[in-house]
Each structure stands twice: as C-alpha cells, then as structure tokens.
C-alpha cells in the first residue's frame, strides 16, 4: 500500500479575513441546505436533490482559494460548490423548486447547477464523466495561455469508474492545471466505499498510478482544506500539473432526498456529527480571539439571505412552457429538420 501524504500545514492558519470568509461560506451553505431540506418536506423542492450537509469545509476551503477566473466542475451534490463561486442563493433555490427564476429556469434541476458567469461550469449527474470534461477546461486554459486553474469535485464512489482513470492519466500526461478533489464521505449511495474498493484510500492510494503523490486531508477542517487548496492551485498555476486530493468527510443526511440514511451505523454517524465542520470551526475562531459578535453577525446575515432567497424563489412562477423546445441547439431552438 502506498504511503499517504498528509499535506504539511506548517504555514500556520490562514489570515483572519480568509478565516471569516471560510466561516461565512460554510454558514451560508449550511443554511441553504437546511432550507432546501425543509422545502423538500413541504413539497416545494421537486425531483431529487443531494445535500452537502457536513461537507461544507471542503467546498469552502477550495472555493475560497479559487481566483474568479478559475473553473469549477462538480457533481449532483453541488449546491455548496455553486454557492462557493458566489452564485446567489435565490436562483439556486429557485432551480431546486423548478421555477422560472431558477439558475437554468428549471431545465437542469438540482443535479445540474451551472453558472458560466461565475465559472461554475456545471454539476454533472453521471458518475465520473465530468472529470474528463474538467480536463478539457484545464487544457483550454493551457492552450490559451491563460493563468486559470480548474477544480473538479467528486465522491469516493467515483474512483471506481473508468472515466476517473482515463481523466487522471490524461491530466498528468498533458500536465494540465487541474486539481481533482475526492470528497470521501465513506458512502456511495447506500453502499460503503470500503466494501467495493481494492484499496483503503480510494483516491490517494491510486494517485501513484498516475505518478502523483497521495494527499489526504481532513475534509472537516476548513483551515486544512484551504491550505491544501492553496498549495495545489499554486502548483497547477505554476505549471506543476495536476493534483489529486482526498478529503475525508461525511454527509450528515441520506444520499438524496428520498433517503433517510438509516443504513449507516449509529456510532459512525454520531462520531462524525461530533466532528461537524461548523461548530468545530466556530470554536476554533473563538479560541483564536475572534469576537463572538463577528460570528453572530455572519450567521444573522446568512439567515436573512436564505429567507430572502426563499421568498424570491417562492414568488417565481413555474417556467414558461415554451422552454421545452428552446436551446437544444445554439440557434435557440429545437429544429432538427428543414
């Protein structure tokens, strides 16, 4: 078995403004996901949705380290990553609620959140595919000589599908400015990753197969994810090529809206809830001397923001039916014949 490298975070904690930003991002993500869950219970969130509750420190740490021109690719579990790019809550929530105001006017749904304006290049619902597509964005940056970096998030279960392998190899061969982030939350849908994977660390133990070092980071520690992100992005931007990071974390709820997540051992859930990234980080900031009021005002602002976003989304009508036959092709229509 490959030795797994823990990244050194000797550089010390991030600057205070970064830490407050990390906290704010996590609070907003948490508020958003909790509200999405409530709205689902009220029958207002339609279709499926996959919450990132518990995994906020990964999205925040990497999101905060991105430059505005960098590209993000995520999975169906992509709400956090979308918010991390600065996409406003209202259109995201409206997309979950299948409203005209939605980020894609309801055409994509919660699994496909995309905001090209924010360089959130999409959420993808076929396991593995987007790793290859993310490569393409990174390749394009390189071809254009642009100092952009691409980050691509995916789950532990994704490491066993063919596209993972193809994407990692090509990224290294072409020395692409890309960072692959495996959010190892220990479960695929209802099956534990350990039961179907040949190695203990599904991503990090595979890194050497692509000539990369195995990097494991505590995915519930926003300082740690941020530090790893800064290092990996710097490497990519400096021409050092791809990185593969495995962030160990846990989803607090079920896989998707229909799933109460009962298949997981109680002790496992309890242990991870104790390591909830939000209270942990709040505590750490207080210990570092941040006045509680600063945190409270971040929290209150976020609560107001999610309330406003909810109202905006609720007020929006369902999408116009003409959208069904719009934008299949670049001419704006669906005409396949002449």
């Amino acid at each position, binding site marked *: 078995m490959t030795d797994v490298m823990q990244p050194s975070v000797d550089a010390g904690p991030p600057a205070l403004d970064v830490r407050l930003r990390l906290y704010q991002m996590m609070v907003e993500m948490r508020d958003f996901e909790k509200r999405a869950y409530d709205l689902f219970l009220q029958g207002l969130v*339609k*279709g*499926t949705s996959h919450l990132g509750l518990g995994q906020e420190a990964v999205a925040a740490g990497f999101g905060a380290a991105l430059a505005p021109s960098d590209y993000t690719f995520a999975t169906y579990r992509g709400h956090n990553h979308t918010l991390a790019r600065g996409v406003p809550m209202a259109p995201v929530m409206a997309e979950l609620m*299948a*409203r005209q105001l*939605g980020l894609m*006017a*309801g*055409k*994509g*749904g*919660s*699994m*496909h959140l995309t905001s090209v304006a924010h360089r959130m290049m999409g959420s*993808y*619902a*076929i*396991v*593995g*595919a987007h790793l290859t597509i993310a490569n393409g964005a990174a390749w394009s940056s390189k071809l254009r000589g642009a100092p952009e970096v691409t980050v691509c998030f995916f789950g532990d*279960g*994704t490491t*066993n*599908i*063919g*596209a993972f392998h193809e994407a990692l190899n090509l990224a290294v061969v072409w020395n692409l400015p890309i960072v692959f982030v495996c959010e190892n939350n220990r479960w*695929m*849908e*209802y*099956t534990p990753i350990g*039961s*179907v*994977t040949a190695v203990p660390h599904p991503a990090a133990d595979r890194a050497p197969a692509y000539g990369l070092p195995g990097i494991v980071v505590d995915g519930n520690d926003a300082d740690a994810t941020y530090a790893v992100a800064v290092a990996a992005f710097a490497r990519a931007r400096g021409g050092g090529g791809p990185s593969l990071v495995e962030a160990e974390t846990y989803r607090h709820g079920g896989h998707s809206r229909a799933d109460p997540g009962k*298949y997981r051992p109680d002790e496992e859930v309890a242990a991870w809830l104790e390591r909830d990234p939000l209270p942990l980080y709040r505590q750490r900031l207080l210990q570092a001397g941040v006045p509680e009021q600063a945190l409270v005002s971040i929290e209150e602002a976020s609560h107001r923001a999610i309330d406003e976003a909810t109202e905006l989304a609720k007020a929006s009508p*369902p*999408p116009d*039916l003409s*959208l*069904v*036959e719009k934008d*299949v092709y670049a001419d704006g229509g*669906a005409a*396949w014949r002449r």
Partner: protein
Amino acid sequence: MAEMSYRDAVAHGIAQEMRRDPSVVFLGEDIGSAGGVFKATVGVLDTFGRTRVFDTPISEQAILGAAMGAAMTGMRPVAEIMFSDFFAVCWDIVANEIAKTRYMTNGQVTLPLVIRSGNGGGSRFGAQHSQSVENWAMAVPGLKVVAPSTPKDVVGLLAAAVRDTDPVLFFEQKSLYATKGEVPDGEIVDELGKASVLRQGPAATVVALAAMVPRALAAAERLAQEGIEVTVIDLRSLVPLDVTTVATSVARTGHLITVEENPRLCGWGAELSSIIAEENLFDLDGPIVRVTTPHVPLPAADALEDAALPNVDRIVDGVRRSVL
C-alpha cells in the same frame, strides 16, 4: 391472485427465478443491502444471501462484463443498470460484446443473461436520469428488448427473459413502479414477442409501450365517449417485435398511431411505422401518426417535463389527425 406494485413485482419475479434455478445470480449497484435505489429488489439479498446477490462498485462496464463472462461459462446472471441513462457508460459491453459475440463465434457462445434497468421520465430527475432508451437497444442486432407495463407482465416477462438463452434488456419504467395490479399466484412465465390487445375498436390501432400504455388506454376511453372506438395494443417487447398483431389490427382499422416516450427521431415508433408503410401501405386510410416526446433532452422542472412527455391530450389528438 394478489394485488402487487410494479416495484414489488420485480423482486417477486427475480425471487421466483432464483428459487427455481441456482445458476441465476444477481448483481448491480445498491441492489443488495439497500434493496435497490427504487426499492424494487427489497428482500432478494435476505432470501438468497451473498453467494447469489452481489453489490458492486460504480463500475457499469465491470458489471456487465462480469455478467457476460459468467453467462458464457454456465451461469444465468441478472444485472442491474440502475438508470437506463447509464447504459451510455457501458454501451460497448452491451452493443459490441454482448450483442455480437454469439454471431462472431458462429454460435459457439451462448449468453443467457438479463439486464434490468429503470427507464423513462416523469420523476423530475432531469436529462441524465430520465431517458427512454429502449430504442438504443432495438437498433443493435443481437439483443432482445422487453418493456412491461403491468406488475403481472413484470413477473411473467422477467421469467421469460431469465429463461431465454439470449441476452435480454429488460426496461422497467420508473414512472410505473408505484402502480399496482393483480398478479396471479404461483409461478408465472410469459412469452417474449407477444403483444397484448388491450382494447378492441374499429376506428384506429393505437400501439403503446410501458408507461404510455395506461395513457393510451385513457385516450381510448376519452375517444370512446365521442364514439370513436380504437384498438389499443401493448407491444410489451420490441425484439422480438410482434408485427403480426399490429399489422392484423391495422388491416382492420386502417389507421396506426404509435405512442412512445422516446425522443422524436429513430424511436421504435418510426420502425413500426416504416414496417407498415412498406408491407401494409394499402391497408392505410390515413397517415401513420407517431406521438413521441419532442426531440429534446428531458427538462427537470415538473411543468416542463409534463409538457414534454406524451399525454392523453396528445394521443387523442394523434388519433384524430389520423382518422380525419
């Protein structure tokens, strides 16, 4: 006779066959402990244990490759591809390997296997989890293709599929999982390639599949209220395709309307229409109308998805366009 959901009929059908034949094994993602993401295989693991039921990694090529290799060497695997959209990640194993190997080896290799998959829209899952792709399978020589519309047919056709010596793609329509129907007690075994005539009427022949069957029946009901009595045929299987039943009916009614969830181009409706236009043209008294989803990916929003999928209004309309 017991009332059973389409969902439960799947587990019932798998269990019936696994009990009968020890060479039947079952593999797929989350099918065991979790009973499937659609809860269609609840209890199968408990009944047959981990020597017959296998939860796999997210590796669709490896799943179908394993099924194929096992089928070549004496087993009768039933594999699940969770959503039929995911056939795209393992299409090579289906279309290039499973479909062609018997032919390429001049009949040396036999592949008695079944691939079950949740097919179709209506669940607001968006474009990558809602496709009806039974036409993809129909287009590839060497596969059999089945799509039941009732719990009884789920059990009977699944049994027929498992016992068939050819590879069968078995499409379970997701929007039907919650529907219920009577299922006779005891072992049920149906036959592949026989369409069901569900309603007789002289005005037109309406042919539907899977979730479109109840809609076609509802349209027939509505038309009957206006005095237009149509025949409704549930195709049940695309390969073998029961051309005889359809052609016989068209010879009587003079009108053919196909109703399919497939997007517009190259669906099974086009195939059926073109067969009739080639072999029975002079039986026709009006245009062959195909009611389909428009040629678009499926949108996620409920309002949009409902507008995209064929509904009773559009079927009624389709019949009118043919018989007028």
